[in-house]
């Protein structure tokens, strides 16, 4: 049995090498003194300095963070409410709603992107041509607003998918018990239901946030000309032959993601151990 392990471990190692070699190279060349991704010219932190002076890129980072936080929070509230609503529906209408909810998840990003772009351009055209625009003295245009709508739209399905299983696992009697004991509907929801589904809600929030940070295709089509996001800026920069600031940026992003994943995993392991210990205390016999 042990002998079989060697080829399989070799294969696994090669796949991980394939996955990480390019990232390691980017990190190494982010410290390169010359403007090359191919020839090593000595150690330097010049590209990090350059990155910090690139106001356009930093502006894009700020837009992306504000956009992702807003979109994730709104999508989480909208999606959690929707999940409870779907859960309360009859089977037929629930399955219709869930199928529509799944459209942005299964559709190709480019189709979601261009379809929303069509809607925005169409709606803006109609509004700006109408008397309302003249009456209010307002002209719509694509920009941060359309970007935010698009992000909420593709984030909410993830929230619903992560809250739904939590709702299914609820004991329906608990809520009624709370009400029998005199809790109002909202109070019972806050004290009984919300704590139970909270892990699903938080999970949805995190997924939504990372999806927003990472999105390129949908932002590219819905952003309009005034604003720009990090991913779109990366695309512009990467189209040029060599842009060493991008190496520095990749390194920083990799470190942030690595630290985040590490803390999430450590927290999870700790929770599991604590949970196991608690269970052992409750059932000393087992």
């Amino acid at each position, binding site marked *: 049995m042990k002998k079989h392990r060697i080829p399989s471990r070799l294969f696994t190692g090669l796949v991980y090498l394939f996955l990480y070699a390019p990232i390691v190279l*980017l990190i190494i060349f982010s410290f390169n003194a010359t403007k090359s991704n191919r020839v090593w010219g000595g150690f330097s932190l010049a590209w990090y300095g350059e990155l910090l002076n690139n106001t356009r890129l930093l502006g894009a980072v700020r837009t992306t963070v504000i956009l992702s936080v807003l979109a994730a929070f709104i999508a989480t509230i*909208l999606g959690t409410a929707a999940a409870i*609503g779907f859960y*309360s529906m009859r089977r037929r209408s629930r399955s219709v709603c869930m199928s529509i909810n799944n459209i942005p998840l299964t559709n190709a990003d*480019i*189709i979601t992107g261009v379809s929303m772009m069509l809607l925005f351009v169409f709606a803006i055209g109609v509004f700006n041509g109408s008397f309302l625009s003249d009456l209010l003295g307002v002209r719509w245009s694509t920009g941060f607003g359309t970007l935010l709508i698009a992000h909420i*739209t593709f984030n909410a399905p993830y929230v619903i998918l992560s809250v739904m299983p939590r709702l299914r696992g609820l004991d329906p009697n608990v809520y009624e018990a709370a009400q029998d004991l005199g809790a109002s509907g909202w109070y019972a929801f806050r004290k009984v239901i919300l704590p139970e589904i909270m892990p699903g809600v938080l999970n949805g929030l995190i997924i939504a946030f990372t999806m927003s940070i*990472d999105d390129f295709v949908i932002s*590219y089509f819905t952003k309009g000309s005034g604003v720009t996001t990090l991913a779109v800026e990366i695309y512009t920069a990467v189209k040029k032959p060599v842009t060493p600031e991008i190496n520095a940026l*990749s390194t920083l992003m990799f470190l942030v993601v690595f630290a985040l994943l590490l803390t999430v995993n450590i927290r999870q392991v700790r929770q599991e151990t604590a949970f196991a210990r608690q269970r052992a205390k409750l059932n000393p016999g087992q």
Partner: protein
Amino acid sequence: MKNKWLAAPYVVWMAIFVVAPLVLVVVFAFTGQDGSLTLNNFSNMGTYVPAFRNSFVLAFVATAICILIGYPLAYFLSRESLMVRKVAMMLIMLPMWMNFLLRTYAWMSILDDNGLINQFLSAIGFFNLWNSIFGTNLTFFHMINTQGAIVLGMVYNFLPFMVLPIFSVIDKIDPKVIEAAQDLGANSSMVFRKVIFPLSLPGVLSGVTMVFIPSVSTFALSRLLGGAKTLLLGDLIEMQFLGNAYNPHLGSAIALVMMMIVLVLMALMNRFGEGEEGVAVL
């Protein structure tokens, strides 16, 4: 807690921002620039057959390679200890959290004519050896701006989407089922063929969906690794909406046809997959 009206805001939201845009795509696909009803957008589609062929062939190849690499990887990892499995899955997900444009950018400098692979090969004297054997006069392998480079980019970017669902399905297989098969006299290859593989098929199917759809509709990858030499559907659609060839009506028609082909393929695959599962249950 039963309150279906809580879903009302989101149902309205979906109607406006999910359903209406798709209806608009259909409307645009069947109308001309002047707004009249027409089928011209579809009858002109013949010109774009190469783009359709390129996209679907490259996406098929990339998906197949992802299965060939991802399935064994997921299977091998599922036999490791809990700690190794946790770390291994974290390491699979980690690159996914870096923007795919950055990951693609890394490959641009590796595959280049004077990039790192060619530098390495020439440093170890590989080209001298190659030239003396084959009588050629090579100083580098041309890898960037080829269809192969595009496939490599797809595999590199989307491989985790294949590994994760397969792994989570294999990981959930009840060890008792495998023990039962062994007790009934199955050897390890039979256990794999008759128990593990059929039970892991749903994971493979969702992996295929998650790799194939982004591959077939990609537009940045081909521009960065294919040097705009290979026109893919994604590029074509992008050109109609934001590029020089501005014609959202034609773009909508192309997007619609692409969506239909993908839907039909996925439906066929799921039906085929369900059939397999049915056999396994029997």
